């Protein structure tokens, strides 16, 4: 990734580091992550639970639980301004208004004792100083916008009175309320029924296009990614192991972990064959393996993998020209690419 100052970039995260200080020791949850997204584009961040993908997003949003989590280094440039050096007040005015977040479990992410109307209207009251009545009217519009049936009648209902899909629509409505430039969606469809997942994802994608927002989509589900993402960043043990445009990554993964993830998707044309599974478990962040953190589970591991941590190598595309944003943290990325 380029290190030149780039004010046109919507979000540019550079070498972000987050550690958790617990009673059992200090764990580096995010160890120097760099990624970015442009306006109108979608970046998918892929990884297992504990890979640091959500923690990175929370650090970008500025909603880490601190303690135990602390940002220890790096920059989060939003339209060229570093969010990490802003005053808390400035930062708060960005949060919710210019960048918004959608959480996985809308039932627990919405306040159980306030009506959804009140929770939506709150955005306008706090950030825009609107009167309660006007804000309430805008809340109804928002609910219409995310296609909640009978919005006017349901604005005074409580979160538990909605179905899972409808609740997630309300989360989305809350996020787009102030037409932010960036939305971070943390596993937005994981808690939903499969049939509803696609509807919610489509809505999100449609809204992104309409408002020309940047979207960071955090997920562990490669199936979700293929349709909507432009770029993909794969995370493992608190670091990015591969970045690539979505087609490149699917066609020619340059990291054994990515390949493992791709191979473990059930496919119709592979019916009858045994499903591939990456052996072993993701490491505890308190005891990350030396060298390449993936080596204990890697089919390609050599001695060098156990001792030397691979940097992010730039990876050329199929025509052998160096592609922007294509990189892999594997000593043997060439072999992987050719495999």
């Amino acid at each position, binding site marked *: 990734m380029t290190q030149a100052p780039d004010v046109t970039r919507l979000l540019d995260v550079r070498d972000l580091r987050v550690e958790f200080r617990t009673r059992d020791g200090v764990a580096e949850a995010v160890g120097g992550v760099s990624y970015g997204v442009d306006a109108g584009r979608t970046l998918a961040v892929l990884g297992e639970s504990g890979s640091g993908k959500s923690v990175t997003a929370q650090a970008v949003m500025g909603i880490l639980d601190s303690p135990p989590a602390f940002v220890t280094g790096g920059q989060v440039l939003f339209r060229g301004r570093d969010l990490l050096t802003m005053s808390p007040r400035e930062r708060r005015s960005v949060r919710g208004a210019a960048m918004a977040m959608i959480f996985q*479990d809308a039932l*627990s992410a919405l306040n159980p004792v306030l009506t959804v109307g009140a929770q939506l209207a709150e955005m306008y009251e706090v950030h825009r100083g609107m009167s309660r009545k006007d804000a309430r009217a805008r809340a109804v519009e928002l609910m219409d916008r995310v296609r909640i049936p009978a919005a006017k009648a349901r604005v005074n209902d409580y979160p538990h009175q909605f179905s899972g899909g409808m609740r997630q629509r309300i989360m989305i409505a809350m996020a787009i309320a102030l037409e932010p430039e960036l939305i971070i969606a943390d596993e937005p469809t994981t808690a939903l029924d499969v049939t509803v997942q696609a509807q919610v994802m489509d809505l999100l994608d449609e809204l992104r296009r309409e408002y020309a927002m940047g979207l960071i989509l955090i997920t562990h589900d490669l199936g979700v990614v293929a349709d909507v993402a432009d770029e993909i960043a794969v995370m493992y043990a608190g670091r990015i192991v591969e970045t690539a445009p979505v087609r490149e990554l699917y066609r020619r993964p340059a990291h054994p972990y990515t390949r493992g993830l791709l191979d473990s998707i059930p496919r119709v044309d592979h019916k009858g064959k045994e499903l591939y599974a990456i052996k072993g478990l993701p490491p505890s*962040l308190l005891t990350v393996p030396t060298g390449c953190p993936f080596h204990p589970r890697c089919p390609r591991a050599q001695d060098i993998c156990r001792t030397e941590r691979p940097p992010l190598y730039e990876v050329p595309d199929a025509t052998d020209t160096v592609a922007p944003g294509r990189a892999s943290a594997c000593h043997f990325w060439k072999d992987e690419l050719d495999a």
Partner: protein
Amino acid sequence: MPEPFETHLDMTEALAPAAGGGGPVAASGADTLQGGGPPRTPRRLPWRRPFRPGGGLPGSSRGLWSDAWHDLRRNPVFIVSALVILFLVTVAIWPQLIADGNPYQGDLSKAQEGPAPGHPFGYDLQGRDVYTRTVYGARASITVGICATAGAALLGSVLGGLAGFFGGWWDALLSRLADVFFGIPILLGGLVFLSVVTSGSVWPVVGFIVLLGWPQISRIARGSVVTVKQHDYVQAARALGASSGRTLLRHIAPNAVAPVIVVATIALGTYIALEATLSFLGVGLKPPTVSWGIDISSASSQIRNAPHMLLWPAGALSLTVLAFIMLGDAVRDALDPKLR
């Protein structure tokens, strides 16, 4: 009157609906609704408690108890309160170890006098040594506290545990019965009961506290058993054909007993305070039993002239109650990781 309400509510947060302080209907309503979504676990670091292959099933008693013991040994609150309690129990059994005087013998010429050499706490109304009486007063308090707690805990956990395990009409009956006892403010019940049973020894007091104390423990035990009963490993044991008795003793009891222990420890402290209050009101223990409550009562009218008569037994009483409550608090923190 101090009653361990907080623990009551705290522990029941995680337990079954009907065990809550509020109406059973209200609580169970919330439970069903929350049961719809994915289980709400407190947001904890995923790697804090990694899966332990050797630790057996999640929630197994071994893991919980050894973890708790590990925490307790490093908790200064636990160590201090345990040492204080150890000291108090020793003194209750052998008061002559640290006080060689006679708690009953007074010298009226020295009534209400302040500290003198060999009599660091001064003298009381009848010229008796306040230090000796304070030391001897531990016996009544500790006896009442330990016996009443043991009785209430045993009765409450057996009745509540069986009700939780078998459910049905027996459960309903027991819950109503517990409600009946809850309907009587404990201090009032004590006053009425002990004013008609006029023996003045510790046993009617112990009996009364067991009588009004068991419902609290039984609610906790019931809720705890109902929760544990629903765990997969218990269901598995039953599916594999384990008998009711075996399931209850081997699988449920060890996992359900933690909340009972916590509540009982804290209750012990409040029972001691309750005994002292009843003695203060003149219906609990009566002379010649040496009791902090009685001494405080007789000293309270003399607080202007001789505050030392009140402060020493009151301090000893408060310290004793504090030690047990702190012990219970530390044990709760260790056994209930949710609150860490």
